[in-house]
């Protein structure tokens, strides 16, 4: 994945979250996380990513 892909995907994710609205966004992200787990395929990797997401700078 190159920088412009990241750029475009970031924008699409932002717009999608705004479209479904604040109330439905957590569920959308939860579904996305489950789908991503399947794609990642490695349980240890998934645990490490979850820990990173949990312990990032803003807690």
């Amino acid at each position: 994945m190159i920088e412009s892909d990241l750029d475009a995907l970031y924008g699409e994710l932002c717009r999608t979250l705004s479209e479904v609205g604040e109330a439905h966004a957590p569920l959308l992200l939860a579904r996305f996380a489950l789908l991503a787990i399947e794609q990642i395929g490695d349980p240890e990797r998934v645990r490490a990513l979850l820990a990173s997401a949990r312990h990032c700078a803003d807690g």
Partner: protein
Amino acid sequence: MVTRAFRNYPFVPERHAAQLPALVRGVDRQRHSVAIVGGGIAGFACALALASYGVRSVVLEADDTVCVGSRAICISRRSMEILARCGALKAFLAKGLPWTGGRSFFRNAEVLHFSMPHDGNQRLPPMMNLQQYYIEKFLLEAAQESGLVEVRWQSVVGAIEEAADGVRVNVDTPLGSYGLSADWLVGCDGARSVVREAAGLKLQGTSYEGKYVIVDLALRSERATERLAWFDPPTNPGSTILMHRQPEDIWRIDYQLRDGEDSEAAVRPENVIPRVESHLRMIGERDDWAPIWISLYKANALTLESYRKRRLLLAGDAAHLVPIFGVRGANSGFEDADNLAWKLALVIAGVAGEELLDSYSAERVYAARENLRQSTKSTEFMSPPSFGFELMRTAVLGLAVEHDFLRPLINPRQTQPVSYLDSSLNGSSVGEFSAGPVPGSVAQECPLTLFASDGVHESHVTDLLGPRFTALYFTQSAGVSRELGHLEQALRASGIPFRLVMLAREHPANGSAGCAWDRTGRLFPMYGAAPGTIYLLRPDGHVLARWQRGTAEGVRNAIAHTLHASGSHSKESAQ
């Protein structure tokens, strides 16, 4: 409560008197080739660039001074190159503060340290900070020095009428009103352009809700010149703050208003001063400071669909409004002027058809859309337009401390030259090129040694450009065929400003005046060139065509195609 007395900018603008030209029955006796409405950056840059081609113009400015207050402060390398070609860069370099990058912080952590493209091949910094009043003053001085620009202050343009062979405008001054006729009218009269209105053209695009307070202040500090950004800083939770150094111990601080904050109250000194104070204390500035100017900013991302309507041309903010993030506002005004001037000059000289001006519109509308695409991304990050952008930005900023791959999303995407890859003016790229700028893009910078009639100088590729077409002819040792040798004379005889510059791989024999040497050995590989290669550059420094083995005929045909190409069609030839 913190209070601070206001101070003035350390710049006192000269006030200019109104004047009436010699009139015949209420009309300016002189018919003008080019009248420019608006004496701001775009207007003065247009006048100055036209003067470099020997074209006279009259600038009609409503005010009696150059601008005051907090306006543009960042000049890009591309704008500096344009100023250099107009012979006006010296004053800017003497006063401006060069810079190359910046840093962004999320709460207490640094999340980005970025650098703009800069290497040992460059002669100019990627960016320079200079207040707009100085930018306009230096442009005005250079324009006046040319002897080809007449500036009329306190001259408000009212009614504009189009005629078959030109434009007639009504000018109101404190001394009375008069009519003025011009062959061409260039609207550089900003966001509320009367020329745009007269042309019946409408700005289209997006206006953003997020508001920024912009504060210029006086502060003595040792802090470096760089772009600084703080997201959600501890002393101003929820806010985004930007900071830039300007010459003469002036600093700019921008901060975003919180949702629902009353903007009228937000710009009152009693509300601004404590926020600025707490920010300065947080970053360790202990010295006294004084506010100078407070204003409110809302981002617009708008452009016209065309910058030409017959004899009316639009440039700068009259043609497009670009969000401030990424500094594309004033800089795109310079690029408009640079693109328009050579085309208008060649049309006025009768060397090119009027349709060349359609390519001004096509290329600069394309550039505006590219600028808007980039600055919209910056704006969506700096000033999230909705819940999704807000949430995702918080996620990015939190993760970016440890996850480098997210950092490009925080980068302010500073302005870069736009390539006109699909321009109808472009000629072909003939032969295999392993590297080098393709037709439509700007020439790449590289140091070289220039052998001139007055001696040997360390120089750069962009020094070779001037108000003319330039053919860069790569040779082994400064030899040139008879046809190429005669080309300069032949083109000039038909009124086409042109120069052939030989770029020698080997140190050229003594006496090869007007020839440059690839002293570092970097130029040939950078341009994918071999002896015999030609790059033909437009007067604005964009590549028109290139040939691995060039000929005089190829150069002549490419220039002829440019002078008579229609801007409404894409080029047919493949690159």
